[in-house]
């Protein structure tokens, strides 16, 4: 028997380069479970991809509608961007009683959204990251920064929260200006940032989008030499694009200590496991299947109550590659504490508590400094 799980991500549109690695992560978990043959007595989990475009709420809604009513999926990994995720949740998932676990929608607004207990996310809300980022910067003795953010709810939410936290802690933000992703040229933005000045530039953007272009320009034109890099900026591309040119720059991303990340990386085949939110996507898919097992059914309205249980303590910690074991334990009625690739710990209304990995660029490589 087949169980279908939707993978509803933005395969086309501005984040098209991130989506494949995320989808691969989610599908890896499904493959692992299928191969273990232990889910609900040996069902096959079939991923069904759906394209949400990131920016077109109507298209995303239609996609979710198709996944649920046409494909008959029993759970959805997605959406990808916060706005589009809200639309799918409100218009399709809730009315149809479908569980959605987003690996990457990080807008704080989703925290308070009414969801009937159907929505979870394996990425933390941006509200927390901004606090951590402010602390790290101040600890380095940098008291004045310029901020540029990608002009969407993620970037703006992060930048505004950061400005509030940083100013409250005594820092000075010289300018807090957006940049649009995918635009032809960033000379104007760089000019403004340079004029405003500051000891470092906080780039709350995406590494394969405007974020890199801004760093490139700022670097070449000699406007800034130290950059602060939150989650969207930390990826393989960062090393590839800049190498040792940005040595000394630093940042943080939702990520956890422990073996999860490494194990996930070791399992990855044919995609970039360090790609942003790839591990989170693995975890999202894993959580759906584990909750099904715990509830003994694929009915979303039933297993939705089990998601928090399998994700959190008490129970046996589960890392990537151990899904078979977890299914066995659950089948035996035992508790598990899913850790996964991103040290999953769901709090409050079902979002990741968020540990953050602090990184620094050293010799052209992303170097882990510690966790907080």
């Amino acid at each position, binding site marked *: 028997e087949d169980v279908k799980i939707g993978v509803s991500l933005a395969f086309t549109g501005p984040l098209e380069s991130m989506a494949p690695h995320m989808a691969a992560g989610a599908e890896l978990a499904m493959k692992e479970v299928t191969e273990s043959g232990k889910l609900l007595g040996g069902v096959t989990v079939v991923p069904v991809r759906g394209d949400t475009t990131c920016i077109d709420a109507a*298209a995303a809604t239609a996609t979710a509608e198709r996944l649920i009513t046409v494909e008959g999926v029993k759970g959805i990994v997605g959406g990808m961007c916060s*706005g589009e995720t*809200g639309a799918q949740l409100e*218009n399709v998932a809730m009315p149809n009683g479908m569980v959605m676990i987003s690996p990457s929608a990080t807008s704080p607004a989703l*925290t308070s959204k009414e969801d009937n207990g159907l929505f979870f996310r394996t990425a933390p809300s941006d*509200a927390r990251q901004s606090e951590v980022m402010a602390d790290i910067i101040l600890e380095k003795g940098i008291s004045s920064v310029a901020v540029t953010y990608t002009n969407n709810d993620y*970037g703006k*939410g992060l930048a505004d929260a950061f400005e509030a936290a940083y100013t409250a802690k005594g820092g000075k933000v010289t300018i807090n200006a957006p940049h649009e992703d995918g635009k032809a040229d960033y000379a104007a933005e760089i000019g403004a940032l340079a004029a405003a000045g500051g000891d470092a530039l906080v780039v709350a953007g995406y590494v394969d989008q405007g974020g890199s272009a801004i760093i490139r320009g700022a670097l070449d034109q000699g406007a800034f030499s130290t950059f602060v890099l939150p989650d969207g900026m930390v990826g393989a591309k960062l090393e590839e694009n800049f190498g040792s040119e940005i040595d000394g720059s630093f940042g943080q991303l939702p990520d956890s200590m422990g073996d999860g990340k490494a194990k996930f990386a070791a399992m990855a085949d044919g995609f970039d496991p360090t790609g942003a939110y790839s591990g989170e996507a693995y975890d999202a898919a894993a959580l759906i299947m584990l909750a099904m097992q715990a509830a003994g059914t694929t009915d979303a309205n039933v297993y939705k109550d089990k998601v928090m249980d399998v994700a959190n303590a008490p129970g046996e910690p589960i890392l990537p590659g151990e899904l078979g074991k977890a299914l066995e334990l659950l089948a035996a009625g035992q508790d598990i504490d899913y850790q996964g690739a991103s040290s999953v710990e769901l709090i409050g209304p079902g979002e990741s508590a968020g540990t953050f990995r602090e990184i620094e660029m050293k010799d052209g490589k992303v170097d882990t400094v510690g966790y907080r």
Partner: protein
Amino acid sequence: MSGNRTSASQNMGLRYTLVALVLPALFIIEWINGGPNAALGILNMGLISAILALGVNLQWGYAGLFNVGIVGFIALGGLAPVLVAMPPTEGAMSAGGGRIALALLAGIAAIALAIAVNRKAPGKTRIIAVPTVLIAGFAIFRMIFDPGVEAVQAINPSATGFLGGMGLPTLLAWPLGAALAAGAAWAIGKTALGLRSDYLAIATLGIGEIIVAVLKNEEWLSRGVMNVNGIPRPWPVPYEIDIQADAAFIERAAGLGLDPVTASTVLVKLLYTGLFGAVLLALIWLSQRALNSPWGRMMRAIRDNEISAAAMGKDVTRRHLQIFILGSAVCGLAGAMLISLDGQMIPSGYNPLRYTFLIWVMVIVGGSGNNWGSVVGGVLIWYLWIKAEVWGPQIMDLVTASMPPGDLKSHLLDSAAHMRLLVMGLVLILMLRFSPSGLLPER
């Protein structure tokens, strides 16, 4: 000549019959394959698309106005449900609302003054006086405006941070959406309608971008990129979870042999279909009557040859303005409807590819100048846009099925998502190939 015309009209009859058969057939197939929810979901957006296409057809098909700023009018219309139906943000009005209103008034006054100065002031002083008035006006505007905005945006930024709306029924937002778009169209038309063809196109494209930029960056108004969630549904559409909890409903659904989830989701969609269908029918009726009247004849004359129409006593400028406002209002109306269907307003989602060019594709594929053509184009292209998402990867699977496994195959499979655009493009090219003046041409 006469032979020519009868064969043409027979041809048209055939086309209408075909379309009248094919569209319902697609709907039924969709219903059978995907169930009522999928079919109705596509239909509802199809109806809104049809209305949008009707609005564009009004401007292009009737009057030859090349408006590529549709996205701006749709976005403005989308603002209406926010302003009308969202609850007012507590304290926002007193914190900064007054200031903002005052600032806007000051801004308008400054512009009015500048216009007056431009008219009255003698020759050379004008060159200095007008910019002075404008710059001073802008400075005063910012002085009043900025603190107000800051105060409003400070109120619980992660949830509100904007003025909010008036807490009125969402249905009222529809006419307001039309009115907002019409107002903007008036202002734009007054300045830009002197431009022709592609020049008007790019000017309107720019204006559309500017409107979207404002909605995206003025958080006090629309929450900007932070989006507005939870916009109430229009009367009489209920929320599924509410009726799913309603015992009477569950019973009635059971009576029909339906489970409550399906029953509720279908009911909601049907209600939307009813609302949108009613609006579309009303608009079609008005458009058809207008087109088949001396008014329509005059518009076509203007479209055909402006110079000559002016020499025949038609006030081309005024008529252009009229139809520009009407068409934009229809787009605004559809924009408001769209947002009340989505339940949220995402300003950054208004991108021209989706909300301008796709609409244009609908109009042209349907057949410009023909109202029914626009409706058909709207529904059909929306259908394809949605289906291409499924067909694309399926086709890719087919193509690669016989390939030996390897880098190429996996590379192609990984890119399967892009087949969506390929399929869309091919369908578009093919349709226009066999029907260059649209499925239902003007005549």
